[in-house]
């Protein structure tokens, strides 16, 4: 079997895409929703004008529909049916609507398209659990970081895989197989077979989307040994999500925590997981959210 894999990897190396191919792929990706950008901006502003928030939500029919579906769900069981975003604002208040819209908008930014060789549902679950775990643990690394930034970085860290899955699905499937066979990290298999890994192409996509610099760097370097607090939080959350089998991003390797992270946490990965309560609940919540 390993001969077969070697043959494939040789074959694919010969057919590796050029840098230009990758740039073309990134160009073909849908734009980051403007509304998600704007909601992220408004949510970070304590003095956000409610009129602006209503306007940006109302101009995005998908976010509007999802928000109304959520507020009219059994979860809220309101006495009155909420029929519009303005109605939701009067009923639930600005802050609740703002935070609901932020959660919906960031998840909405991930393409939900069904792909043949790639289970997007499992991928989303991995992304979302990494996001919520990163949000929860980020203060271990820097108490001043906004947990919302850690959430978004966690959500988007593997976005590059969606580019491969859409525009080079066969080669990407081979990379996943190669990782399984060799039990090596997916990004190394991608480098062997595709000539670029998902972190790098994810970085290109994040640049095209004009995301904040820190986020671009975090996506691009999430498999590198870089020591920023945000990077550390995403690295640890990513390993926890894999260790607990929350969804599946195609990477079979759970990396041990580097020494500098173990020092900050004062323990190894498994001990750290043990110290966190309610992780399975995070996964259940993520599942619910994907299904809205």
């Amino acid at each position, binding site marked *: 079997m390993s001969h077969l894999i070697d043959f494939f990897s040789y074959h694919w190396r010969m057919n590796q895409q050029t840098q230009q191919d990758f740039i073309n792929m990134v160009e073909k990706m849908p734009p980051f929703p403007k509304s998600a950008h704007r909601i992220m901006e408004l949510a970070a502003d304590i003095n956000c004008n409610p*009129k602006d928030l209503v306007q940006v939500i109302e101009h995005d029919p998908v976010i509007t529909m999802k928000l109304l579906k959520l507020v009219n769900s059994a979860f*809220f*069981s*309101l*006495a009155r049916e909420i029929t519009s975003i303005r109605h939701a604002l009067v009923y639930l208040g600005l802050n*609740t609507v703002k935070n609901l819209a932020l959660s919906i908008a960031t998840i909405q930014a991930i393409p939900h398209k069904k792909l043949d060789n790639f289970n997007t549902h499992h991928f989303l679950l991995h992304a979302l659990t990494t996001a919520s775990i990163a949000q929860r643990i980020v203060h271990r690394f820097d108490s001043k970081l906004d947990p919302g930034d850690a959430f978004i970085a966690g959500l988007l860290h593997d976005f590059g895989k969606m580019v491969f899955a859409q525009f080079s699905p066969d080669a990407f499937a081979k990379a996943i197989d190669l990782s399984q066979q060799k039990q090596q990290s997916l990004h190394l298999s991608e480098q062997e077979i595709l000539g670029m890994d998902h972190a790098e192409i994810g970085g290109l996509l994040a640049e095209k989307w004009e995301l904040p610099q820190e986020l671009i760097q975090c996506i691009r370097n999430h498999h590198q040994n870089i020591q920023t607090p945000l990077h550390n939080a995403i690295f640890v959350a990513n390993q926890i999500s894999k260790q607990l089998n929350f969804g599946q991003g195609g990477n079979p390797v759970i990396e041990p925590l580097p020494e500098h992270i173990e020092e900050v946490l004062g323990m190894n990965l498994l001990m750290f997981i043990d110290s966190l309560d*309610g992780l399975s609940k995070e996964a259940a919540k993520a599942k*619910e959210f994907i299904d809205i």
Partner: protein
Amino acid sequence: MKIKFWGVRGSIPSPGYQTVRYGGNTTCIEVRLDDNTLIILDAGTGIFPLSQTLPPEFPLSCHILNTHTHWDHIQGLPFFIPLFVPGNQVHIYGADDPISHNGIHEILTTQLQYRFFPIREVELKSDIHYQSLTESNSIQIGDATVTAIMMNHPVINFGYRIDCHGKSMFFTGDHEPPYNIYKPDDEEYTEYQSIIENKHRHLIETIQGVDVMIADCSYTPEEYPNKQGWGHGTYDACIKLAKQAKVGSLYCTHHEPTRSDDALEKVFSEAMQRNPRKENDPKYYLAQEGLEICW
């Protein structure tokens, strides 16, 4: 029904000689049904002195209704003595959080983390029962019916109406009447106004005719413009609501933490001058720590 105020201060405990008459503890209201069933509205720091009166009733069954999970409404909970004593039954009710999807149990789980409190949740000796409430499902506590209504605050906040044997009371929790986000010449203004009015009608229907209404009267009309959106009401808005809902009496609470007793009496007296009481109007009072209402 009997009501006793154990905490009437908003935001943060405010002890000191300037607040000694009205009290510095944050929100906590004891409600006793005619058969002595104990309902506690919010677990601000006032719940600690309340809990010191409870040991003679052990083993005790009590019901804590949480309006919302901001600190000033939960701060006393880890010091609620019945939680630590075997045989007691403590029922805690409140809203789930729509952002994290966490239930009401999260209050104690969060407060009693090893780093923040010396006793962990698993070490509590009483039987604790959590129940998530929603607006459209009233619940029974003993002979009382408790109805929750969504109020307006920067987090989900339930107002609670309690009805028992023909007597009734309502507590707003923290509440700012929703305001129109549009200007009168914006085309959306009228539609938004009608949504506000619908919501207001629903509130009046829910409160209609209660004997006692306890309401968030944090600000004067002069103070309010700088505090718009903070989620708190004014004396004048509460007086208007009390009149519209034809309640028996209004107790103004959630006193501003920086307001001294003298200043509190002054702003209340000015509110009374602006809103002179006519025949059949509700009676108006300032909520005060230790004050009991029995009817």
